[in-house]
């Protein structure tokens, strides 16, 4: 079981369709799993029908996923965007600001970092230098 974290706190998984690794995806695939070493620029023409993208975070020290999210959004991707793996509560604001909608964590991590530690950063829209720098 995994836990889905959003601004309102913890919730169970509600996306029940299969999510396909990019390498196995077909043109009809609408939910994609991206490895952390994916170059989003190479996805340019495949984003059309996609409604869910999940980006892997193998380690909380590996920040590639944040740039992947940002790049997908800048390329015009408007579907659901999820970070999955070793993301910690203190990175929640970064994930949201980079363009993720939610974070998927393991039950073990959810136990060690309970809901209130994530809600502590649900104010991610406040105190954001980036929001002041661009229109």
């Amino acid at each position: 079981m995994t836990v889905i974290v959003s601004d309102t706190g913890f919730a169970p998984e509600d996306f029940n369709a299969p999510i396909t690794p990019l390498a196995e995806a077909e043109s009809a695939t609408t939910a994609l799993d991206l490895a952390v070493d994916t170059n989003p620029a190479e996805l340019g023409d495949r984003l059309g029908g996609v409604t869910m993208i999940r980006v892997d975070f193998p380690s909380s020290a590996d920040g590639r996923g944040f740039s992947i999210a940002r790049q997908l959004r800048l390329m015009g991707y408007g579907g659901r965007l999820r970070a999955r793996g070793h993301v910690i509560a203190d990175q929640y604001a970064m994930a949201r600001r980079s363009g993720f909608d939610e974070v998927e964590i393991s039950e073990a991590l959810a136990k060690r970092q309970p809901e209130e530690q994530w809600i502590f950063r649900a104010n991610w829209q406040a105190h954001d230098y980036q929001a002041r720098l661009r229109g």
Partner: protein
Amino acid sequence: MYYYNDFDASFVAERNRQFRAQVERRIDGSLTEDEFKPLRLMNGLYLQLHAYMLRVAIPYGSLDPAKLRQLAYLAERFDKGYGHFTTRTNIQYNWPQLRDVPEMLDALAEVEMHAIQTSGNTIRNVTSDHFAGAAADEIEDPRPVAELIRQWSTDHPEFQFLPRKFKIAVIASDTDRAVMKSHDVGLRIVERDGVRGFEVWIGGGMGRTPMVAKRLRDFLPRADLLPYLEAILATYNRIGRRDNKYKARIKITVHENGLDEIRAQVEDEFPRRRAVFGGEDQALLAEITAAFAAPAFKNTDPAPYFAARDADPVFRAWSDTNVTAHRTPGYGIVTISLKAHGATPGDASGDQMRLVADLGETYGHGDIRATHAQNLVLPHVPLADIPAVHAALKTLGLATGNIGLASDIIACPGMDYCALATARSIPVAQGIATRLEELKIEHEVGHLQIKISGCINACGHHHVGHIGILGLDRAGVENYQITLGGDASETTAIGSRTGPGFAYDEIVPAVERLIFAYLDLREGEEETFLEVYNRVGMAPFKSALYDAEARAYAAE
């Protein structure tokens, strides 16, 4: 001088609130040390040899009296009465307790300072020219751009977990006083056809693989700066190596992929980044620039300065080295040496900091700088007041007249504090400076930069020292390698190794032999150590280092 607006102030307060909670969660165990580590590093807190170390940012080296007084307070309240100014214009406190750190951060916030992003794999404190706003040769004050980058890079959500740390420097003159080409990204403000923009340099760095930065762009329009930096950082975040910490800096990414390939990827990313910048950043830059308006310079008679030079040979010698021409007639730039012979380079006591704060307030339009060479600067002092400044500095051992001379040594903390060190560096600097003082030759020797690092990470900038010293560990024994010909100026160069290293008790005599060899080789007083080295090459210095040693052994 830039002062926090409400946004900055509440940002820092909120960040301190978060860190306070993180410290509590570390103490109660809900954060593991592995998870806490990147978080404390994002807030400048290291675990060193003996204790935690808090590294506080001095953005682009700019201070005012209130800030410096607060740094003095922290030194006395939470440390052993000292602070250590670093080569990245930060100040380090070597003895704080973990539970005190949130309180230290709150005290810093009172004077609009913080320790955010002074460590960790993120964009670090932005550095600049310590004579910014005072230098005669700059085309504009580079600090507003540095401040814009500070705001943009602070808490940037994409770039807190990069492959490795990332350092940016900004200058605005032909003369490079900020070692710009040793940064991951170096920016030089230039003018083309009457329009200001940036030269962009990439991939410079020290460490175990020193590299001089390469030019990525000849001219970047001013308004493109932040999206272009984002394109560079996003490219680096994606393709920078994460498998080997020693190959993770962008200098290696550039080296392995080639400058042209990096440029192609950056330029490909750039348009999407540029599209979402609608001009707010430029409006903010205009506000910041207004905040950095030059002080109201007074029209004063410089006669007392020249009279003091004529009357007092000590003042004259000090002002020869420590006073630099100011852009405004009647003013001088005063560099305060934190390199008294035999002292720890870059250390200042609480009392010394308070004195400098007072002098800045009384004589210097409230402007104070920290330099990458680990000294302090009063950038705007009327010449007429400089004798009084000198007299006051003498009372606390701050009137050493050695700026740019051989005892103005850059040295990292080394084995005395640093967990990564392989050798001591502070005592070597002290030994060299003490010996120079005994010989009384450094004024005759003239401009000579000696830089010492206690390990291959090269925080002491030894690669770009005219004489560079690197302390290594050879089977449990300290061994010091010498490099010659490094250059930290606009003609940046990496020094070359002379040959086998020297033992701890041999390194000071070795440096002495190099200095005497230089005096023999130079064609006149005007020819500097570096110029001689560039003219005659390594051979005569090598022979002074090793043949003399051989002779000494033979004589035993």
